[in-house]
């Protein structure tokens, strides 16, 4: 009997549950995908490049689980509040409290179970998609990667079932405490009349003030460091809430003050709706503005980070390839691309020292980035006589950097001696030639650099005793790029899907809020219809009203992102890289939700045609 009641209840509230579902399913799918990416053991062992990505996905899992918990908590309380009357009715006809609690608990768990089934399937597809995209962008093969990974399935189910059990228990307990009368009359509430705003000017000023502080903290994050890291989110959040709660009711009030516009067509009705709606929604809308900032920020951040792999690699490596003893194969590859600059140096190794030719170095000093001025320069010529203190030659910092640029594999392993050509000729030991090559665009010839790195493996094995190409590696621009790019790609996907999950959850909260008021609105739209308002006019009013509700948090949230991306300047070169792509993705999803909300709302309040 109780089971039957529970499933009847589910059926009745299909629409509300559908919205809850979308948020939950996306969250489950992304959660599973993150877990699969970070937990696949075999995948970790086999692939050193992937190692770092997994940490990134683990961070994503943690963040997602926190937000998801709040989402579940909120939606659950909301759904229960919709059903207070039903609860009271069961009590009235003599059902025991524990029985009713069980009904609601079974319902919640059933929803979670259904969402889990769909979400996991979607998650498996997502994992397949993301791993495939990662493989392609990193040019590696994930042979050991399992799309259906049982530990990930288990933990996803465990997390979501536990979370929904906890939230539904908390809410049920709360419901059980209210009196029958209270429960029965719960749907007979009237919207409170928006109070005349008091002290709102001060509140708006304070809001702008705190937003200003938050924004400056974001802007000067590099200088403020830790202070900024705490000030920025705190002040921005506070400013957002202050501004929304004070500004939103005032904006509509101002519209209404323009009587000529207000008393035209249905405008007075639309602004009246908004006046009530924005007053009751201001807290939710402020929260949504923050969530938008987080989700769009996560998408944009991931995107910028991926780009950063290209730009940052050029910061530290002025030469795209460093080739030891290049042979015909290497030369052939180099000849196939436009090389801007090509330098060759000779080096001799004996048991104690590495010898370099002073004349060669002075003749073609390589480009380096000066660590003090941060400019790309060529070191000044070396003095004729280099002092030796404690067994090391004294050279300028710039030359010190230059030696690493010339000889990234061996510099530091032995004491370096820069000697005149005559002395060099006399030195014992095997001679190695090193070729530095530079193009105008490292990212354009990734395939060539990869090929050169592969060709060099044989040289390394010959040159360096004990070098095993399977386990060892030599630092080259390409290998470092590849590692960075792997993390960046991981972060990109993590950011994108985290943003997507946030966005779905946020949009479903907003839709809940709008649609929960819709049943009250049925009467209003019916009155208007009776008074002779054309359907078209009613529809326009709906479009406009919901647009405003969506617009405010959207605008402020995006503004947060525009300012907030600056925060990443101290770890990225260009956080604003192609920001518009992320913004477009965000707008597409957000816009989709807007139209979906309008569609559902219209279906509720307007009679069928």
């Amino acid at each position, binding site marked *: 009997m109780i089971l039957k009641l529970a499933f009847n209840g589910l059926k009745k509230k299909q629409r509300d549950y559908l919205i809850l579902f979308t948020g939950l399913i996306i969250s489950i799918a992304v959660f599973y995908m993150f877990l699969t990416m970070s937990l696949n053991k075999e995948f970790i062992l086999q692939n050193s490049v992937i190692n770092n990505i997994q940490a990134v996905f683990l961070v994503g899992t943690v963040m997602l689980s926190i937000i998801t918990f709040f989402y579940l908590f909120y939606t659950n309380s909301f759904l229960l509040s919709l059903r207070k009357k039903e609860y009271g009715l069961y009590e009235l006809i003599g059902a025991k409290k524990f029985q009713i609690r069980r009904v609601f608990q079974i319902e919640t768990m059933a929803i979670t179970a259904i969402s889990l089934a769909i979400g996991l399937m979607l998650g498996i597809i997502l994992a397949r998609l993301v791993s495939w995209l990662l493989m392609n962008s990193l040019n590696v093969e994930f042979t050991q990667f399992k799309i259906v990974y049982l530990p990930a399935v288990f933990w996803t189910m465990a997390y979501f079932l536990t979370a929904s059990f906890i939230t539904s228990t908390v809410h049920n307990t709360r419901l059980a405490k209210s009196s029958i009368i209270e429960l029965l009359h719960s749907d007979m509430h009237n919207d409170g009349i928006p109070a005349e705003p008091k002290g709102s000017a001060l509140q708006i000023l304070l809001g702008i003030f705190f937003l200003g502080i938050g924004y400056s903290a974001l802007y000067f994050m590099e200088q403020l460091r830790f202070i900024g890291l705490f000030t920025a989110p705190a002040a921005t959040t506070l400013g957002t809430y202050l501004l929304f709660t004070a500004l939103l009711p005032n904006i509509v009030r101002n519209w209404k003050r323009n009587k000529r516009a207000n008393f035209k067509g249905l405008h007075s009705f639309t602004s009246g709706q908004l006046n009530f709606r924005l007053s009751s929604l201001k807290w939710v809308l402020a929260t949504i503005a923050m969530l938008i900032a987080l989700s769009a920020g996560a998408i944009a951040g991931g995107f910028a980070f991926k780009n950063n792999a290209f730009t940052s690699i050029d910061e530290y490596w002025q030469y795209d390839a460093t080739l030891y003893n290049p042979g015909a194969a290497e030369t052939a590859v180099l000849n196939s691309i436009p090389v801007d600059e090509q330098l060759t140096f000779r080096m001799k190794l004996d048991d104690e020292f590495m010898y370099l030719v002073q004349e060669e170095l002075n003749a073609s000093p390589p480009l380096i980035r000066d660590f003090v001025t941060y400019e790309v320069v060529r070191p000044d010529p070396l003095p004729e006589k280099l002092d030796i203190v404690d067994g090391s030659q004294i050279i300028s910092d710039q030359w010190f950097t230059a030696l690493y640029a010339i000889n990234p594999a061996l510099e530091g392993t032995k004491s370096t001696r820069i000697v005149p050509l005559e002395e060099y000729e006399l030195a014992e030991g095997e001679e190695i030639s090193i070729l530095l090559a530079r193009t105008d665009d490292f990212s354009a010839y990734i395939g060539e650099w990869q090929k050169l790195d592969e060709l060099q493996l044989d040289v390394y094995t010959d040159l360096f005793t004990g070098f095993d190409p399977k386990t060892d590696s030599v630092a080259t621009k390409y290998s470092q790029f590849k590692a960075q790019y792997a993390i960046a790609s991981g972060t990109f996907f993590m950011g994108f899907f985290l943003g997507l999950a946030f966005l779905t959850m946020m949009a479903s909260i907003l839709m809940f809020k709008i649609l929960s008021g819709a049943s009250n609105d049925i009467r209003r739209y019916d009155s208007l219809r009776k*008074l002779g308002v054309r359907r078209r006019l009613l529809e326009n009013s709906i479009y406009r009203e919901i647009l405003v509700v969506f617009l405010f948090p959207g605008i402020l949230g995006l503004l947060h992102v525009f300012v907030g991306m600056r925060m990443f300047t101290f770890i990225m070169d260009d956080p604003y890289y192609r920001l518009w792509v992320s913004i477009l993705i965000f707008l597409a999803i957000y816009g989709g939700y807007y139209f979906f909300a309008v569609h559902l709302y219209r279906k509720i309040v307007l009679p069928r*045609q």
Partner: protein
Amino acid sequence: MKTILEASNISKTYGKKGTAAYTAIRDLSFSMNEGEFIGIMGPSGSGKTTLLNMVATLDPMTSGEITIDGISVSAMNEDQLSDFRSQNLGFIFQDFNLLENMTVFENIALPLSLRNTKLEKIQAGVHQVSAILGIGDLLEKYPAELSGGQKQRTAIARSLIHEPTLLLADEPTGALDSQNAATLLDTLADLNAERKVSILMVTHDPRSASYCSRLLFIKDGKLDRELFPAGTREEFHQEILAVLGDLDRRPVAGVRI
């Protein structure tokens, strides 16, 4: 005298063909002259609200024709009907149907706003009509802040502001106490007598009906009889009570009591 409403042979059947159909109104005809205050009475389920909804163009009829102010509404599409309602009809409902999210002023102004009337005209109109109804000092309040009587006065003001051909009232005193109901009916009677507003009112309350200039009794979807006031309102009231008693005593079609 000018005829403003002509209903000829109208019928309303609910339910599709083949299924158990229920006929709410059968072959009913009546007409209304300008300046009349007609009451429609009848037992529950007799079809009075159905009749009002058809006149109000809210509910399409199954057959027959309704002409209001010389215009036939039978063949209009949804948009035309909307426009027709907003221009020619005024509504008063039992539960007021005020828009709670708008002030009294905005509620009253709505029919004019919908026609994009100039602001100055709207303001003049609202002040005039609210003064007549004695709610001039409530204009900036929201419906939730008003008493039942004040709400219904607001609804009347809204139904009159665009000077409709016909005012339709569905149990307008249903949600009011007797004091407020009496005041409201006096107002309607005054509007009818002094401003020549034509009113068609559905009611089951004999007291309300005694304010009308003509009563139509409906039973089982058909016009049962007509009644005109003679003598005082109290005498008319007694007469109505007698007719209603008689209607109740007579057997309902096919059923013996």
